């Protein structure tokens, strides 16, 4: 497959150079993306990270109102402890640092090692595990962290800007995760630069249900049907796990290769589903935010809001990937 790269080995480095060149608000050093202005004394620092290939997650969410630093790993590979340690030290304004970790074995291991090794900084961590496609049981690695990561970074980020202490920021981050659920569907696989060919073969006639964000196959493969029916599958799975009531924040997220037009087609169906359950779409987001390279498909993430969460969602944010109210 054709790729806009120089070499497969340098793709992460080259993309980070581009981010640094495009966004003076960011500073990139040793594979860590920081806010250019550095830590603010007394503010809890927010650090996240994970494999590359999910852009704008995470580096695109570094800036006022969200993250203080992001640690990008190789494509679909978690970052290493050294990066996370440097980021943690680099963003500490004396109030401690929250690690926002998506629940994948690699991410968890590397963040755990970093938290153990970092000295002189108080560290708390929150695990994001919102994907209802995975059964949370002793027989799996637990639910994956997917779209809710953006919600956690946004709302915990807003709270941190208000000057809340680490324990409170960590508690709210965990609450956002608990109130959020996601489900993803792929129309195509994706191609990592190193592999050069699709991770799995998906015939033109089929879709994969319950995919994650790494081009890994999902729980089941079924014949392609209409957007209405696919949105229904995703929403039934979410509603079956966390009944939809009250005010909701709803994101229809593209996996990287689906036109915005189609995402809006999906959103209309999602909104109708929500209405049918007597709940309300109070806030929404439609676009490519937590992607899998050029995969075609979408995920839906729903968060049950309350007044405080709504306020933190609405709070000003200024990052390359998300920007409003400032």
């Amino acid at each position, binding site marked *: 497959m054709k790729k806009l790269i120089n070499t497969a080995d340098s793709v992460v480095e080259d993309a980070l150079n581009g981010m640094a060149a495009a966004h003076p608000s960011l500073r990139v050093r040793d594979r860590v993306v920081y806010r250019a202005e550095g830590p603010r004394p007394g503010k809890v620092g927010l650090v996240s990270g994970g494999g590359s290939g999910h852009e704008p997650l995470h580096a695109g969410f570094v800036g006022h109102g969200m993250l203080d630093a992001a640690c990008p790993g190789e494509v679909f590979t978690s970052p290493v402890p050294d990066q996370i340690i440097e980021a943690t030290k680099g963003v500490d304004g004396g109030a401690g640092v929250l690690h926002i970790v998506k629940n994948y074995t690699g991410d968890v291991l590397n963040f755990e090692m970093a938290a153990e090794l970092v000295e002189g900084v108080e560290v708390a961590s929150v695990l994001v595990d919102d994907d209802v496609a995975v059964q949370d049981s002793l027989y799996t*690695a637990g639910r994956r962290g997917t779209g809710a990561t953006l919600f956690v970074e946004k709302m915990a980020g807003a709270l941190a800007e208000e000057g809340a202490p680490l324990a409170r920021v960590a508690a709210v981050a965990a609450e956002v995760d608990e109130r959020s659920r996601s489900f993803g569907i792929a129309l195509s696989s994706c191609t990592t630069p190193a592999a050069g060919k699709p991770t799995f073969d998906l015939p033109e006639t089929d879709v994969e249900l319950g995919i994650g964000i790494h081009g890994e196959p999902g729980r089941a493969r079924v014949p392609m049907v209409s957007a209405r029916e696919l949105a229904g599958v995703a929403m039934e799975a979410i509603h079956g796990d966390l009944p939809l009531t009250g005010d909701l924040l709803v994101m229809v997220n593209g996996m990287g290769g689906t036109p915005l037009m189609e995402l809006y087609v999906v959103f209309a169906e999602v909104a109708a589903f929500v209405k049918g359950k007597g709940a309300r779409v109070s806030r929404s987001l439609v676009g490519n935010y937590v992607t899998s390279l050029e995969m075609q498909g979408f995920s839906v993430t729903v968060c049950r809001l309350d007044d405080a969460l709504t306020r933190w969602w609405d709070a000003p944010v200024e990052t390359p990937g998300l920007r409003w109210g400032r």
Partner: protein
Amino acid sequence: MMEAELFVAWFEEAARQVRDNRDRLTRLDAAIGDADHGTNIDRGLTEVLKELAESAPRSPGEVLTTAGATLIRRVGGASGPLYGSLFRQMGKTLESPVTLARFAGAFEEGVVAVERLGKATMGDKTMVDALIPASRALALAVRDGVDVRRALDQAARAAAEGAKTTIPLQARKGRASYLGERSIGHEDPGAASAALFMAALAAVAT
């Protein structure tokens, strides 16, 4: 006796075998994971060889801890910390001069470190399914008093057989576990690479 040079040669041979099998490992990972296992281990071992050349560790223990720390620092993913912990713990435990019995003991400690970090046990469809049989084969070889070369051959064979036993298993750890029953019928890429490591050690022991 097993000298430091043997352990350096182990990583050189492992790097060669992983490179030869890079596409196979990546293919196995594409079936039930995210298609980067071959690439990541290859990249990690390249860094290990560079680090071993630069720091020139003298004892077998130092070679292993250097390799382990490099894998933890450079690879990322789950395999970096897991293989890193295997070799680092092995290195920390291994006393010189290295006898087969000492090596078998240190190897077992390394495997325990992997089990603890990954919270995996036999049958979860992970690298542990290759490492534990290898460790048992080493312990048996020590008990039976066989020579180093044969002991490492037996360990390599046990690891390879262990990797094959993962094919009918349903994954309970790592990314493959997300597939549920669909993970059945595929060899675990971590177990496959663990078998390559053991084959590499057997190949350099003379």
